[in-house]
């Protein structure tokens, strides 16, 4: 290290991967596999802090002026901006590197989990066998919004089983989140869930939820901190992906969280749950992976399931508004077009309040606020205090949109 020791400034990069919490369901991971994730976390940080600002500078210096010169007018929308950026070398190389890094991250994580697939799957089976907190539905029809494309370039997405009882896709998701976010989500990738739980405790101090529903839970990394913050509540977490749910329950048990049930289902029609049976319905970074038609059904379903006085909260990246520069909107659309998040661009352009109102929520009961990932600041970078890294769409700081169901409301 002697070369790097000379004249180094205080280190401000991602922490070493070994700070990631290795719970009892965590795959075995070797020295070199860790080093691979370290490199990828550093690559993502470098791309967002050192290369991406160049895209913004190129936009100001040549992309926008060239467009104005050739068209004789300003950009009309973010799609015009994006299409102009696609012809600029800095945008092209930043994009090519960002896409390559994402694909390398998938390969790195899949290698770790697939080389020990039999052991991992057997372990998950042992940890979940006969446990009624896991309800799978092999006949569930996977919604088109999941089956059409593998979200964030994750081969097999949330639902594919390579072999009966498979959990490898979920384990891959779990171990690689560190690399994608550069450690911004904390020790158990739960900085978002911790922030939501704290938001509720601070803003709704008298709220004592007995039943909580988490929709689109994935492997449960965002719902566990909610279950831990409300240990007396019964928590139900629903997803379409059986591998996520098997791994999710095994992981929760390994982490000593016992009040979550993992249920396979389509959250636009949860007929097995009665009207007004939940105090709180939560989704975290889920709506952007659905569709307009399912989102309407989901909003209506959350309203049916909520008790009067109950609350629904959706955590997402901020909506595109007239106040947001078209350049920022175009950059935020990157994941939609180039990282297999197709509905991202559509969801972020609509008036979500209108969708909530259409589902029957009273407009004056609608909530808007912001949260940032809560992590151990001694070890992990804090999104709330990080002005240097605006990783459009990937920053660990989000918008909360929600609504109270008015007391005395009838179930729709």
């Amino acid at each position, binding site marked *: 290290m002697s070369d790097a020791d000379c004249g180094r400034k205080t280190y401000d990069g991602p922490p070493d991967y070994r700070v990631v919490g290795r719970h009892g369901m965590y795959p075995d991971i070797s020295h070199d596999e860790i*080093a691979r994730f370290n490199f990828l976390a550093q690559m993502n940080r470098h791309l967002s802090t*050192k290369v991406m600002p160049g895209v913004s500078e190129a936009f100001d210096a040549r992309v926008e002026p060239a467009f104005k010169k050739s068209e004789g007018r300003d950009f009309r929308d973010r799609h015009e901006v994006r299409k102009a950026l696609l012809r600029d070398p800095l945008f092209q190389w930043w994009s090519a590197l960002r896409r390559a890094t994402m694909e390398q991250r998938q390969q790195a994580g899949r290698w770790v989990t697939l080389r020990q*697939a039999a052991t991992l799957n057997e372990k998950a089976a042992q940890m979940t066998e006969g446990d009624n907190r896991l309800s799978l539905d092999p006949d569930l029809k996977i919604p088109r919004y999941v089956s059409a494309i593998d979200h964030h370039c994750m081969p097999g997405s949330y639902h594919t089983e390579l072999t009966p009882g498979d959990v490898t896709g979920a384990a891959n998701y779990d171990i690689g989140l560190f690399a994608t976010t550069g450690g911004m989500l904390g020790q158990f990738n739960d900085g978002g869930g911790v922030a939501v739980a704290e938001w509720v405790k601070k803003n709704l101090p008298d709220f004592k939820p007995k039943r909580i529903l988490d929709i689109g839970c994935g492997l449960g990394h965002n719902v566990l901190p909610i279950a831990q913050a409300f240990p007396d509540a019964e928590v139900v977490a629903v997803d379409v992906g059986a591998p996520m749910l098997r791994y999710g329950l095994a992981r929760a048990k390994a982490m000593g969280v016992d009040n979550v049930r993992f249920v396979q289902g389509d959250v636009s029609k949860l007929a097995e749950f009665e009207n007004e049976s939940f105090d709180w319905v939560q989704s975290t970074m889920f709506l952007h992976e659905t569709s307009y038609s399912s989102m309407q059904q989901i909003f209506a379903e959350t309203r049916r399931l909520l008790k009067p006085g109950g609350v629904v909260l959706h955590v997402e990246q901020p909506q595109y508004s007239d106040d947001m520069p078209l350049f920022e909107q175009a950059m935020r659309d990157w994941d939609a077009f180039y990282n297999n998040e197709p509905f991202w661009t559509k969801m972020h352009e609509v008036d979500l309040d209108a969708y909530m109102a259409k589902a029957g929520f009273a407009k004056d009961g609608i909530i808007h606020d912001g949260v940032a990932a809560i992590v151990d600041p001694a070890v992990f970078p804090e999104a709330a205090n990080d002005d240097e890294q605006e990783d459009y769409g990937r920053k660990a700081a989000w918008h909360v949109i929600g609504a109270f169901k008015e007391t005395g409301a009838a179930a729709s």
Partner: protein
Amino acid sequence: MMELDPFALSGAKAKGKRPYFLENPDTERLMNIVMTLAQEVSVMRERLDTVERLLDRKGTISRDDIENFEPTKDDADARGAWTQEYIARLLRIMQQEREALGAKDQYSEEVADELAKE
């Protein structure tokens, strides 16, 4: 349980048509291979660093020592800083493209012609 092939499955393609960004897709394919090589160089460097630190501390090491190595905060910061520096070196051309945006530079040939004026 069915045998899975981790070699093939690790590198599986995600469903959805892949976008290419560079003018020539072959250049982008090559860039992908280079970046994976870059990753593996970083992995080797981290392993060598682990070996050096363990030798410093113990004078002798085993493979298990390497696998179970837990860097201290100072170790981790130094290794992270090396990787930062390494990536900055690797992607020097991106830095220079960015710096060139604001520069009012001339080609050397143009300057030569200018300097040749009497």
